[in-house]
């Protein structure tokens, strides 16, 4: 594009942004130009990584292993499962050899929503009829069908559940059910049953920021639904890396070898 023409377009963009009633992303003056980048709130595509406050001591960084600081409201069954969990991580750690974390000794998938607690990025793709989230961790996929279909009642229980979604204004609402019961909800052993029902609300709040509000409902494990909130920042220069868990490189082997270099 010729620089003169580009200059005209920049001037027009600035003028339009000043007068547009839809311009609502003002932040600090220094960030105004970045936040003012135009974006389509129905376009969630890109590579996103969770952003957390960095100025907290380790013990307050609950997001490394669970969704909230507070305990979720467990049923007696749920509490019993949680009490039996021996996580290798978080507030009540066990020695690695004693951990019964399903991920630790083998290549069991973390499932949904646990995958959100593993600190790796995700890539969101729009394809016809679907919005697909590719998680770098364990190459997990979260396909959300937005073509109007209902849940597939014929499916067997799934690690990632069966997800359908629709737009509610500028919020993508994804409804997921039909989970198996082989995963933990988080990394410390909060449980779920096959009655788990997740609702995720995705909202691109500005060009560089996405929020995901998750409602976790499971009448067998929890006395009432509870919520989690995740913040993501766009990482346009990042690429989703390859990440396979295979037997020679389960967490157990990483810990034994003392390295995380091999993939």
């Amino acid at each position, binding site marked *: 594009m010729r620089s003169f023409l580009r200059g005209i377009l920049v001037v027009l963009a600035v003028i339009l942004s000043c007068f547009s009633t839809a311009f609502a992303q003002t932040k600090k003056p220094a960030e105004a130009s970045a936040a003012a980048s135009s974006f389509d709130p129905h376009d969630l*595509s890109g590579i996103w990584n969770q952003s957390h406050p960095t100025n907290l001591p380790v013990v307050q960084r609950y997001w490394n292993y669970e969704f909230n600081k507070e305990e979720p409201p467990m049923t007696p069954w749920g509490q019993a499962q949680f009490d039996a969990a021996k996580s290798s991580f978080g507030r009540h750690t066990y020695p690695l050899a004693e951990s019964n974390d399903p991920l630790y000794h*083998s*290549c*069991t*998938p973390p499932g949904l929503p646990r995958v959100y607690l593993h600190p790796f990025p995700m890539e969101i*793709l*729009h*394809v*016809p009829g679907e919005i*697909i989230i*590719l998680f770098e961790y*364990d*190459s*997990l*996929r979260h*396909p959300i*069908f937005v073509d109007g*279909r209902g849940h*597939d009642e*014929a*499916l*067997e*229980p*799934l*690690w*990632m559940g069966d997800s359908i979604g629709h737009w509610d204004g500028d919020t993508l609402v994804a409804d997921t059910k039909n989970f*198996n019961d082989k995963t933990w909800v988080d990394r410390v052993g909060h449980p779920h049953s096959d009655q788990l029902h997740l609702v995720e609300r995705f909202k691109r709040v500005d060009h560089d920021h996405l929020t995901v509000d998750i409602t976790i409902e499971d009448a067998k494990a929890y006395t009432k639904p509870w919520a989690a909130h995740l913040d993501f920042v766009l990482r346009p220069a990042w*690429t*989703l890396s*390859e990440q*396979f*868990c*295979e*037997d*020679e490189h389960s967490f157990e082997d990483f810990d034994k070898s003392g390295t995380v*270099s091999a*993939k």
Partner: protein
Amino acid sequence: MKLYRWGAAIAFVMVFRFSPAASAQTKPPAEASKAATSFDPHDLSGVWFDDHPRPMTVMQRYWAYKFTEGEPPMTAWGQAQFDAAKPSFGPHAFPLAETNDPVYHTCTPLGFPRIFLYPLPFQIAQTPGEVILLFEYDSHRHQIYTDGRAHDTSLGPLWMGDSVGHWEGDTLVADTVNFNDKTWLDRTGHPHSVSLHVVERIRRVDHDHLVDDLTIEDPKAYTKPWTAHLPFILKSNWTIAEAFCEDEQSFEAIDDKAAAPAKK
């Protein structure tokens, strides 16, 4: 919506292994009008499944376990690797307990291009900067960057390699390097080294058909580059299913359970 199930896939594999019976995938005349349906040759998106002719003898169905009917031109090193391989599949199959196929006893990834030989579909997702093949089997992902970037030489060796691509007319040319050497090239034990270099020419020939012509080059394993032709057909009412290999569901465990469909 028709769902392609893991259990069905196992049954499919069993049909290939043990039975000359064939599932009919031939194209009846009624589909000719479908082939004339307009399409954008630069749009590769959809769910695709291999489109080899089915009503053939088991021995003719080389595509169930390797890329070409004939033997590729192996170096001495390549031949030695091949001679040491004990596949559980194909005309030189060993008993399961003796196989040294890296994917048999554990959940080692199939890698690329072996993933093409596993009889499950893939979905092509296309964005402005990428063409991604999402294979149903075990979350394998062939991510072809089409945004003009060069290969990333800082990456360690990868199971699926590092792929960049560009369009030449209506053909997507994908160039993949930087493989690890932990996979077999195919299901019968043809080898490759870390010098493997795969060039694919991917073309949507009509609305329902896609072809991928691979050139396989590996001077350590092969005396010269050789080619393979993979045809695919669009499965517009299929959805990619979940198909994890985790320890309880390795091929070995499935066989131990007497090939009962693996419910996950």
